[in-house]
């Protein structure tokens, strides 16, 4: 099912550099960058192929790499030889204790347009896995934050590279081998959606911030075990804020990480391949923020969430109907 991104209504801060006419199937109110991304998503769901991607991520000691086999089949995805399964947004991961349902919501979040906050450039891309590509460069403040290479023929993302504030690559994925691409048929047999799966909420908690940081908009809410997850997006980066009652059992935290002070509150910070994890407590609740956004963006998010005992400083009450998030 095709998911169309909507433009963020109130504050389009970016601009699109487009010299010639647009891309195929471009809706009137979406930017070419959003169209490329939506098309890429749809392309994976409607084609079958097998290949290998090389995943890279930055750690304290430099970049690490791993090859991951990828198979698109029956409208879904099987990665790492079937240890990771995706179908229509739902995702499962096979662990030592069996299948874990990581996502069960098939509705597409209405994220802001890429161009709400970022500048984009589209042009000729490199050959990736022997296939010509179209390149999308996403920038802000003169720095490139992310670069995509889309397959010219079918539109898949063949390469995606993310950059930190210092211009160095922080994460990357690139197809290194891709076989024949065919149309998908049939529907993928998936694991069951487990009882402990994240449950989508029709409306977020009444005290949920609608906006955090610089342009991060609330796009979804889930119940994840004993936690509530609020999902935020700025069109490119995402941030999840998990809250649960109770204060942190510090002994139960993973070893490693660093304690950083923010506004008088001690925040435990970890760097992981999945992003930065920040966890802290306030007013008897524990908060965990997971985000792939930069440290600067994280500080803005923390500031807007409010982390002192005087309470939320920027709470925006959620007043509109259940199906509207803005």
């Amino acid at each position, binding site marked *: 099912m095709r998911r169309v991104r909507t433009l963020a209504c109130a504050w389009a801060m970016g601009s699109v550099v487009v010299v010639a006419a647009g891309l195929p199937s471009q809706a009137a109110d979406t930017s070419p960058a959003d169209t490329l991304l939506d098309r890429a998503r749809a392309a994976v769901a409607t084609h079958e192929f097998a290949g290998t991607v*090389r995943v890279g991520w930055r750690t304290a000691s430099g970049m690490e790499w*791993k090859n991951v086999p990828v198979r698109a089949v029956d409208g879904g*995805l099987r990665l790492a030889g079937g240890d990771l399964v995706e179908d229509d947004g739902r995702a499962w991961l096979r*662990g030592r204790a069996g299948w874990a349902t990581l996502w069960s919501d098939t509705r597409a979040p209405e994220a802001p347009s890429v161009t709400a906050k970022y500048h984009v450039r589209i042009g000729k891309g490199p050959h990736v896995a022997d296939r010509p590509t179209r390149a999308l460069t996403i920038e802000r403040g003169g720095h490139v934050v992310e670069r995509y290479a889309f397959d010219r023929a079918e539109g898949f993302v063949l390469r995606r590279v993310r950059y930190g504030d210092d211009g160095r690559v922080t994460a990357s994925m690139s197809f290194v081998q891709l076989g024949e691409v065919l149309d998908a048929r049939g529907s993928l047999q998936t694991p069951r959606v487990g009882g402990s799966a994240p449950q989508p909420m029709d409306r977020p908690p009444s005290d949920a911030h609608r906006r955090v940081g610089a342009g991060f908009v609330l796009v979804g809410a889930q119940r994840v075990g004993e936690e509530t997850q609020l999902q935020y997006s700025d069109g490119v980066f995402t941030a999840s804020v998990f809250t649960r009652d109770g204060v942190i059992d510090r002994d139960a935290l993973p070893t490693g990480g660093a304690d950083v002070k923010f506004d008088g509150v001690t925040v435990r910070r970890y760097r992981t391949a999945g992003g930065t994890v920040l966890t802290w407590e306030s007013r008897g609740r524990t908060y965990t923020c997971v985000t792939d956004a930069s440290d600067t963006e994280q500080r803005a998010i923390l500031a807007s969430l409010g982390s002192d005992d005087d309470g939320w400083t920027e709470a925006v009450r959620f007043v509109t109907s259940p199906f509207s998030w803005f």
Partner: protein
Amino acid sequence: MSELEHDDVVSAYLDGELTPVERAAFEARLAADADARAELDDVAEVRTLVRGLPLPSMPAGFVDELLATGTADDAAAETGDVAPVLDLGTAQTRRSGRARFAAYAGAAAAAVALVVAVAMPAQTSAKPALATDVRVHQAGAAASGDPVSGLAPLATPLRFGR
């Protein structure tokens, strides 16, 4: 007009590509011919300008991008960790003897918890499930973006670093 105008010996001389005999002969010509010296200066000027160009800056992250183009045959740094473990929290914690209270749910209960927290120093302790949080976050982000690049990182080992 210098007869050297179309003579590539000028370039060869500047590039040090003449034999000692050829070089001596050329230098003799230069000594005798002002136009030849002017011709030499012209070509030398161009040569110097090109040689003096600074190194063009590589785009940000260029070398990392080159390194990202590894092939499926690479054997480098493969850990063989095929089945990612979902929750690493239990494996890495120290055991604590503190009593743990069940977590409350709901706003009313939160207010009660606040009062309780003020009254008693021992507070309700939340057992963090950070590995779950990261995986769920990644899966959710992949659900609204590109699924392959969003999910492939979940097939890599999850480690909590500084």
